[in-house]
């Protein structure tokens, strides 16, 4: 049975962005993950790492706004530290893998990168065996964090930018996460509606060395209602995300791998709460779609 290695060391870098960096801080170098992936052909790696695409995509499309009240013109600036976390469900822990040609059964359920021990199958006629790889990450959710600045308001529009980067250090490649987007007030055209309503579009991108490149897009409608220091907010969004993985397998004879994995989430409903104490804010929201996601954080500004 595998032992579990706890992440007891503090995170030294502000760019504790994602699983790979977390893994590195816990003693599992990114190179280890890369070396693990390098054992897979393009066909074999898809199912194994698909959950990363699903969960990371859901994270990148989360935590952009805490309300829909935007003035036609006015001064707004706010800095938020936003944490996003997608739940790792059972469906993210196994996938259907292909057995070698001629094997019976031809496919089998085995661990993804978030799963447990890989499944061993036995060919019914020859009793030869074949197994899947073990999972690498044992976790209940997959986190990402980033600082975000929103500025406005101009023509009923507010811009949001998030950015965080870590340099190449200690064998870890450079990692960069950035996002840009805008919210536009719809309420200004609908003065009789008792809620603040806005529309948004956000685009995010995360790169991790030459290994991983994730992009995400969210377009949606947002609404909020303030009650004194509390703001209840929610929204509906269409979204899309793609994770590109590129590497050269170390197994001789396997072609270089460059695959695109589409994230599972295409639609989300979210509901959240922002507590404003002067310029200090605490917020959190729950997001429901193919992937369940939560975002929360603290903010400073108006």
């Amino acid at each position, binding site marked *: 049975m*595998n*032992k*579990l*290695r*706890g*992440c007891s060391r*503090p*995170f030294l870098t*502000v760019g*504790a962005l994602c699983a790979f*960096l*977390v*893994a590195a801080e*816990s*003693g*599992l170098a990114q190179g*280890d993950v890369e*070396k*693990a992936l*390098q*054992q897979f*052909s393009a066909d074999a790696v898809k199912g194994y790492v698909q959950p990363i695409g699903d969960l990371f995509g859901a994270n990148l499309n989360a935590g952009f706004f805490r309300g829909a009240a935007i003035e036609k013109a006015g001064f707004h600036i706010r800095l938020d*530290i936003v*944490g996003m*976390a997608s739940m790792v469900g059972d469906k993210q822990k196994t996938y259907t893998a292909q057995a*070698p*040609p*001629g*094997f*019976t059964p031809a496919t089998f359920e085995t661990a993804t990168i978030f799963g*447990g*021990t*890989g499944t061993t199958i036995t*060919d019914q*006629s*020859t009793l*030869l*065996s*074949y*197994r*899947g*790889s*073990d*999972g*690498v*990450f*044992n*976790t*209940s*959710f997959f*986190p990402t*964090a980033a*600082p975000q600045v929103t500025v406005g308001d101009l023509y009923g529009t507010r811009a949001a930018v998030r950015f965080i980067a870590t340099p190449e250090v200690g064998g870890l490649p450079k990692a960069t996460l950035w996002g840009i987007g805008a919210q536009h007030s719809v309420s200004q055209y609908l003065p009789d509606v008792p809620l603040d309503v806005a529309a948004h579009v956000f685009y995010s991108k995360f790169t991790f060395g030459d290994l991983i490149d994730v992009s995400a897009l969210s377009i949606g409608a947002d609404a909020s209602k303030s009650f004194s220091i509390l703001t209840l907010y929610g929204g509906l969004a269409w979204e899309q995300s793609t994770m590109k993985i590129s590497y050269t397998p*170390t*197994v*001789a*004879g396997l072609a270089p791998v460059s695959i695109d994995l589409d994230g599972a989430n295409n639609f989300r409903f979210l509901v959240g709460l922002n507590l404003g104490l002067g310029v200090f804010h605490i917020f959190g929201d729950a997001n429901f779609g193919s992937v369940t996601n939560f975002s929360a*954080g*603290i903010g*400073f500004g108006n």
Partner: protein
Amino acid sequence: MKLKHLALLFIAAVPLMGFDCITDSFVIALDMKPFNGTYNITPGNNPNYGGSITIDPGTLYDTAYELTGASVYDIRVSTAGPNLGNCSGAVTVNGVLLMTYNGTWTQFNTPQSLLTSRLITRNNSGVTELVNAVVQNRPVVLAVNGSVTTTPVPNGCSLTVSAYVQAYGHLR
């Protein structure tokens, strides 16, 4: 300073909450490059053929991994060249019988797999020896002894044996 401390606390807390475990010594399945041996059949009237080839298992997988186990998941036999009648023989690994094969030359012109063909019969001792050699990183001597029924043998005839092994291991 208060703001900075709060921000750092939050940033540290988010990844730590729940995302707290990496599976230690996780095992990765390594599909090794197959153990291939091609044995040319000497042109002429001799119906017998044979030979051996030595393969270092360490050249067939990423040696950054320390192996904890291995399994043979297929063995294939194929022939190249014009029909030589019936073709039979035995394959050994480090002197231990791995398999026997028996069929027509033309049947083997299409690679025959242990998984699907009745023309190949494996021997468990040889499978075990191959697995042990891989895990212990010992050289593998893959030898063939066989015969055909039609002579003279023309130029360009050969028999190829491929043993497919999957190794399991974790990073050193």
